[in-house]
């Protein structure tokens, strides 16, 4: 059993039990991407999951983000069993409970920064004026209050990723889920984004970062290492609280 985050009063944001995910590839091979993973993340945690490519990181990220379903096992997000949700339930869960930050930013190139940030609120059914105010506030929160009307193409990589973080935060989700958030950034921008994560963590946000970069993982409160679809003791990381089964 692996549990991370402040103990005591903190509620459980996500709870993964004996999670198994297998794929059948096009050539008929069965790939076991997750082999019985247990993970509990409490509110306020800042967890980094590391691992080499092929370790099941991406699969874990998709499962945690309600983008992919488990083959067997249980996944409870904010107390609700995700496996029992239909497509509409999953869409609502992704909208309200999770904020995604992707390696490629995934901003819509045709929309200004503020309209990109507004998008999750639009799908949540928030009214126009309210939506705009909250999106501007989220952009100010990530230090881009003066770039609201810029299109992604007019922003640097670091700025684009901060817009993406603002978009992830704007719905006040239970979990901020970042997949290689600094993979496409130079070191200065990486520093910017990691500082932002530190601030958000200090403000009580629950953050899970999936990365293969040790210096990114080092900034997190807790670190877990994934190998061949299960958590293993990380090779050399000081102060890790992740525990192998």
């Amino acid at each position: 059993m692996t549990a991370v985050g402040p103990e005591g009063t903190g509620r459980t944001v996500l709870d993964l039990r004996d999670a198994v995910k297998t794929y059948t590839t096009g050539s008929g091979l069965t790939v076991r991407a997750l082999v019985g993973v247990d993970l509990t993340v409490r509110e306020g945690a800042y967890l980094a999951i590391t691992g080499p490519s092929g370790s099941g990181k991406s699969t874990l990220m998709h499962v945690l983000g309600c983008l992919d379903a488990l083959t067997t096992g249980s996944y409870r997000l904010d107390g609700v069993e995700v496996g029992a949700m239909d497509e509409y339930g999953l869409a609502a869960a992704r909208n309200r409970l999770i904020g995604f930050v992707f390696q490629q930013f995934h901003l819509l190139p045709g929309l200004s920064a503020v309209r990109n940030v507004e998008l999750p609120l639009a799908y949540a059914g928030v009214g126009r004026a309210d939506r705009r105010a909250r999106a501007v506030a989220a952009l100010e929160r990530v230090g881009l209050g003066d770039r609201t009307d810029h299109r992604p193409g007019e922003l640097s990589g670091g700025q684009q990723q901060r817009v993406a973080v603002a978009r992830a935060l704007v719905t006040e989700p239970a979990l901020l889920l970042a997949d290689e958030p600094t993979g496409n950034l130079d070191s200065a921008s990486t520093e910017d984004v990691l500082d932002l994560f530190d601030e958000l963590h200090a403000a009580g946000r629950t953050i899970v970062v999936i990365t293969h970069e040790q210096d990114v993982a080092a900034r997190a409160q807790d670190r877990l290492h994934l190998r061949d679809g299960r958590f293993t003791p990380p090779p050399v990381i000081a102060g890790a609280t992740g525990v192998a089964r």
Partner: protein
Amino acid sequence: MNLLDTAHSAVEAVAGHRLRSLLTTLGILIGIAAVTLTVGLGQGAQERVSEQISALGSNLLIVLPGSSTSTTGVRGGAGSASTLTTRDAAALTDRTDAPDVAAVAPVTSGSATLVAGTTNWRTTLAGTTPSWTAVRDRTLVTGRFFTQAEVDAAAPVVVLGPLTAQDLFPSAASAVGRTVQVDGTPLTVVGVLAPEGTSASGTSQDDTAVLPQTTAAALLGGGARTRISTLYVEATGPAALSAAYQEVDRTLLTLHGVTPATADFTLTSQQALVSTATATAHTLTVLLGGVAGLSLLVGGIGVMNIMLVSVTERVREIGLRKAIGASPSAIRRQFVLEAGLLGVGGGVLGVALGVTGAELLPRVIGQPVDLSATATVAAVGVSLVVGLVAGVYPAHRAARLAPIDALRSQ
């Protein structure tokens, strides 16, 4: 995401690819323009036919003499026999036998050469009674029509058609009071008819000379003086037309002592002519409209094709929208609306093209195009439906995309 937001992003998506959107709508554009023009042409033709027929006088029944059979057994067509006489005309004016008949105008017709000074002109002579103006719904531009007294007296007077008057005299106005000669008999011009145009059968109604039936019978000679070639009967109103038809039929059968099987006259109504002509125009409209409708179908397939391409191209966008909480129906709505927008865009542009065509076409082919507002609005509505329907399948594909596959694609 509410409908307004979805519509907003649909407009942005369509406007984001201007050339492609325009090319996509081209099929629908041409289809709608074709439909608009075809329906306009059809309605223009129907309008013209109805105008021609009502020019002849509405509520009108026409009685023609029956066919004649010569001693050698050669049969003439309807109207070749001289079975109608002024007696028939008099009988139909009887209010008890034919209460739904408003007026009767017997016409004895033939052709003759009119001479005025050094000018001569060959035209049709129509010998009739004063009720002719009412029955045929004609008016005069100048002068007066002849009176019953002149008919009774076989007075040498004539009323000219406007074309005839212009051909014989410097102007229609100057014709009144002048004299024309027919076979040496001088006739005084007492009036000139107002122009009426061409009849449904293609003959000009403006080139004619109308004179008292008695005068005409004497001039044309041959046969009995009471012989008439056409009997025009006006019903008291459109609703009374079929009653008048029955009455005329019964009265003439009794008078001639014949049964319907051996009837020696032919009774037709303007209504029958109108429905035949309208039916022809209608068939043509439906046929051409069907062809235009086919091009709309092809246009719809074009929209569907481009929407499918668009879905494939925007897989990452769809994946992202799903990852941040777009439900399948929100995605579906977005793409259906985009397709609908392409449809409406094509429809509006098509109507614009159709209206332009309706302005230009009559100058080229000489056919009137009568655009109706209803048809135009319906055309835009149809193009919207075509677009929406064409968007259903691509939108369904987009809605079913798995978000991780969509996000993974580069």
